[in-house]
């Protein structure tokens, strides 16, 4: 059975350019921090990757460090910056994030709150899933002095909805409050970060969402000092220790260049495929809705809520039919919780539990979409029957 892979937002296929860069490095011997010739050769690979990626993102090479991925970047930016900020002024207790952040941001902020050094402030979103800038402006006008930092994601991972990070950053900058963005889902699609980033800003990106292998990411720290979270050999000075992964760095740069190179063409193609997918869903699945379809989204992501079923049952049935997608965001122990993202948009908890995400990527084809649409109606019908047998008496 051919797999219809409709889960590129979870992870996408490694691009040939990234694979070539990775494989080439596997044959190289040398630690980039060693002083000898072998070390220098490896270091050169890292630094060329850093420069290439920095140019590709429109940022300064010296501001860019390599990480293990988006989660590490978000943790370092939030925990590292907050430590610096409260060391300067203990009154800066508020960490302001949106209600729809990924857990890498949400739980980093909550961990600081639990440790007693911070209070988490959640910026609400509109019914379309866009961060409420008016609310944010009002908050900053009243509380900037006591705000440690702001973190608002560039694109939501469940709905694909693009967030107004340039505007939000501007508002934060007017109050001299540092601004971080989780740029994981937007990395291949949005304007280069360099177009809006000014002093006091940071962005985290992840390799495997844009066609590099899992295990590499980058964090851009533009006049955004952080307290070191991973101590050791001092490889990325004052920011992050750990042996530099030359091949992974090179593959991340190669993937980013390739993804940005085909941004227009691929974006157009995926928008077309997604429109076909969403039209098909709305036509064949009664009581279904597309979340965030009225506002700007990245091209490949589609959040679908279907009444009267549980997403894990639907995923099981689609999986058996060879269709791969996910339930909102990847969930704890495979157990679906109603997505905090959809709840924040005001979607009813029962409907949120029946929500799945289809996401297209650079290898997606019309055939993938067709097979997804072919399998969906029967799977929905069966999942609804299962829901009725389990909850029939409770609703």
């Amino acid at each position: 059975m051919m797999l219809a892979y409709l889960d590129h937002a979870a992870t996408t296929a490694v691009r040939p350019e990234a694979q070539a860069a990775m494989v080439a490095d596997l044959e190289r011997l040398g630690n980039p921090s060693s002083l000898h010739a072998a070390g220098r050769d490896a270091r050169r690979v890292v630094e060329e990757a850093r420069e290439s990626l920095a140019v590709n993102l429109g940022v300064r090479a010296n501001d860019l460090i390599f990480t293990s991925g988006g989660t590490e970047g978000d943790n370092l930016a939030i925990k590292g910056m907050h430590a610096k900020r409260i060391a300067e002024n203990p009154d800066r207790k508020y960490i302001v994030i949106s209600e729809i952040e990924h857990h890498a941001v949400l739980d980093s902020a909550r961990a600081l709150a639990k440790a007693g050094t911070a209070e988490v402030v959640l910026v609400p979103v509109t019914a379309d899933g866009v961060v409420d800038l008016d609310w944010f402006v009002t908050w900053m006008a009243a509380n900037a002095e006591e705000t440690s930092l702001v973190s608002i994601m560039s694109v939501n991972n469940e709905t694909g909805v693009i967030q107004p990070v340039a505007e939000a950053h501007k508002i934060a900058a007017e109050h001299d409050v540092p601004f971080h963005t989780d740029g994981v889902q937007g990395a291949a699609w949005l304007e280069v970060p360099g177009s809006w980033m000014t002093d006091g800003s940071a962005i985290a990106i992840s390799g495997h969402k844009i066609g590099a292998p899992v295990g590499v990411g980058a964090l851009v720290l533009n006049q955004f000092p952080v307290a070191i979270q991973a101590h050791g050999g001092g490889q990325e000075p004052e920011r992050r220790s750990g042996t530099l992964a030359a091949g992974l760095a090179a593959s991340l740069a190669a993937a980013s260049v390739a993804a940005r190179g085909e941004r227009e063409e691929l974006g157009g193609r995926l928008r077309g495929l997604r429109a076909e997918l969403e039209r098909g869903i709305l036509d064949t699945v009664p009581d279904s809705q597309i979340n965030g379809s009225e506002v700007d989204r990245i091209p490949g992501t589609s959040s679908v809520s279907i009444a009267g079923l549980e997403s894990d049952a639907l995923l099981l049935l689609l999986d058996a039919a060879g269709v791969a997608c996910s339930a909102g965001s990847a969930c704890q122990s495979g157990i679906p919780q109603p997505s905090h993202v959809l709840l924040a948009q005001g979607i009813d908890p029962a409907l949120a539990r029946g929500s799945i995400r289809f996401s297209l990527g650079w290898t997606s084809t019309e055939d993938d979409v067709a097979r997804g649409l072919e399998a969906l109606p029967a799977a929905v019908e069966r999942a609804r029957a299962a829901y009725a047998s389990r909850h029939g008496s409770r609703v």
Partner: protein
Amino acid sequence: MESSKTPKRKRVVAAMSGGVDSAVAAARAVDAGHEVVGVHLALSENSRHADPNAKSRGCCTLSDERDARRSADILGIPFYTWDMAAEFADDVLDDFVAEYASGRTPNPCMRCNEKIKFAAVLDRAKALGFDGVVTGHYARIERGTNGERELHRAVDPLKDQSYVLGVLTEDQIEGSEFPLGDTPKTQVREEAAERGLLVARKPDSYDICFIPDGDTAGFLRKHLGEEPGQILDAETGESLGEHDGAYAYTIGQRKGLGITVPTDDGSPRYVVDVDIEARTVMVGAPSLLFVDEITLENIKWAGSPVRPGFICGIQIRAHGDEYPATVTAVEPDSLSIRVDEQIRAVAKGQTLVMYDGTRVVGSGTISATGRSA
């Protein structure tokens, strides 16, 4: 072409706890040619956040889930975790506490079989298009004379789990497969090792899964609070000590009574009765524990109901002895049984399972006991 002897290829859910038995049961279902999907049950809200380094051997912890997942990988079957925590809390946890609170001694594993594994899970599996559920319980399913399914004891008497399945109805048995019933446990472990299953040497779990430290009294105290009262001599009414909550005492219990007054001859005392309302625990000589008349409620039939006069074997606890007995009265919601000889320590709330030879006939919850002579 005559193909009626070829077993029908079924789609089944294999309930996988993360232990060796359910893994081998799933493997055998795969070998039998069935389309098997592994399902691990998340039964406790806090199991997901439990310390992964904990030494306890309850079930449905994160490490159990991982073990189950790895077995499914090796068998090459899909694997999912189903969240049944809400059902488990309603039907097993709450029931467990409520039963103790009313002075009865429940068996939560049987309640889980009755309400979760062979009800909520089986129902969901069927609704999703599966034919039934496979588990690693040691019991056999045989065909009766009319082709009906019968539940029988396993061949390994030390592992036989037909007792804890005694609460299943005919319909539930119809949707269940127990591939391990014909095999001794030692052989199951060997088979697991041969199959390359990583859980081959994983220790069995014995504790109640939601009380991994085994401290049932502590668990009950937390949920029910302290209800101090007197421990009384059942014959003289003399106060022999105090307790923190009568609910924590079970008929036949000897240890941990906290009695400060010894008997004249130094012979041990046992709990012979518990009165929750009066908050008293009655203790006395072991002779007071013997009964031969038992009344049951919550009757389940594994097949056709029986009539008064039916001679059967009865078992009243997991891995307990079987005693010959006769059914003396059958009502829609209750059943009376006379045991051939007096048996000791029969607590209200326990489940009594009736056998005809190795076949499970039915079961009920013990609601009253007495002595005929």
